[in-house]
């Protein structure tokens, strides 16, 4: 589904991603784990076209997207729920979802009903201004908004950030459900244990490099990973 080959991304003179190569197969949940500032968000932004790699290639669903504009990438069925949710705070819940369906011409109503079915809280609050939602509701809205295009693949950047544990496990359950319903998932998390619990495979990123990759199960039992990311 997604093949990232040898990408190198710079912020001015800072070399943020080094020769990164990884892939996500159709139907998988793959996670990128690593410390703050390791380059996880940069990786997602590069895939969705907000940043450009100087080298290499990114292939999604059989097409190279490394020179494609972000809005065209969305139209191809790859959606990105950014770090910090980035919902439109001054708009209502429903207006936010409508924005999510910006590229959708047909079946908007059905997509909206599906999102409300999955997130009943959003249905209750459909005409509320998004800025007044709680953190968990905002995360649900960000995910609901991304689901409006019925994506083939969804990238989630730190969905657990700033949420109470009960909400975190709810959000993780939803990610698993979405995956079971056929959406391929690329998940970025600082909370490695959380990510490994629901992923099939995972890549460990340190200072812009992939240093380890394996099945989630093996990584959970890897001494190095345990020590560095799972608190012993």
């Amino acid at each position, binding site marked *: 589904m997604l093949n990232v080959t040898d990408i190198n991304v710079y912020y001015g003179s800072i070399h943020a991603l080094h020769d990164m190569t990884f892939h996500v197969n159709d139907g998988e949940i793959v996670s990128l784990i690593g410390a703050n500032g390791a380059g996880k968000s940069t990786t997602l932004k590069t895939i969705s076209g907000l940043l450009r790699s100087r080298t290499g290639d990114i292939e999604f669903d059989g097409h190279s997207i490394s020179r494609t504009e972000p*809005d065209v990438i969305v139209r191809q069925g790859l*959606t990105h729920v950014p770090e910090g949710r980035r919902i439109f705070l001054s708009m209502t819940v429903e207006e936010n979802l409508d924005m999510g369906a*910006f590229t959708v011409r047909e079946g908007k109503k059905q997509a909206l009903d599906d999102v409300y079915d999955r997130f009943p809280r959003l249905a209750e609050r459909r005409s509320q201004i998004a*800025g007044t939602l709680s953190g968990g509701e905002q995360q649900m809205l960000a995910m609901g908004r991304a689901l409006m295009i019925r994506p083939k693949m969804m990238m989630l950047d730190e969905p657990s950030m700033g949420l109470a544990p009960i909400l975190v496990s709810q959000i993780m359950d939803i990610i698993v459900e979405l995956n079971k319903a056929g959406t391929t998932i690329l998940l970025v998390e600082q909370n490695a244990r959380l990510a490994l619990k629901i992923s099939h495979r995972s890549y460990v990123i340190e200072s812009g490099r992939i240093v380890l990759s394996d099945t989630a199960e093996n990584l959970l039992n890897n001494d190095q990973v345990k020590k560095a990311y799972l608190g012993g």
Partner: protein
Amino acid sequence: MNLINHLINGIHVGSIYALVALGYNMVYGIVKLINFAHGDIIMAGAYVAFFALDAGLPTVVAVAASVVFCVLLGVVIEKVAYRPLRKSAKISLLITAIGISLLLENVAQKLFSATPRLFPKIISGGFYLGDRQISMTTIVTIVVSAVLMALLTVFVKTTNAGKAMRAVSEDTEAAQLMGINVDNTISMTFAIGSGLAAIAAVLYCCSYPQVYPTMGALFGIKAFIAAVLGGIGSIPGAVVGGLTIGIAEALTKGYLSSTWADAIVFSLLIVTLLLKPSGILGRKVVEKV
């Protein structure tokens, strides 16, 4: 003259300020740039309309030509001068805007000389409301402005392109992730703002029939004040700000003296900003994390 007349005059001038202020606010809302060249778009629009009318073309054609020219000019300026700097420091963008403003004024001076041209009378007549005379120019100005503002509001609220504008102005990156093409949206914003400026130019010339290279400078600044006063970045703010400035100006001219009008307008700005820095309708979104 009495109060009602002054108010009507104020609404008349204020509507023109509002049309121009809309351009400032839409552009600010979307690229966070105070487009100092916006006033000079008015000048360009006035010259195009003047030459078209001078060549004997019908008014409608002259206005259309002015709109088309200003739309192209606005879009080209954004593409050539502002777009390459979009990721640079905001101050570079601002200085570029001032540079474009000076460039337009000086090119106009070179091409057309500094001598003012007399804009022909395209609206004449008037009628009596009781024993009060209202000129046709006033009626046309107010009606045209009101219709344009209503259309713009409907456009921004209901069309996909309007929604894209709102999304980009709130969060550019998130808008991109929704599949919105930011470059096109910004071009469209400049196009609409410049088109409104062209119509404002013609309406302005109907009341103050002189066309000269720096005509947009002070007028542009006052419209900018209207924008800040109403709430920079806000579309209804531009309308409220424009009308406030227009009415304040008309009342000053009527009851005090014309020489005080600009001073009062600028003082109004200072006082408003001291009391409410975000402008009359400027608002801060309540953010809960």
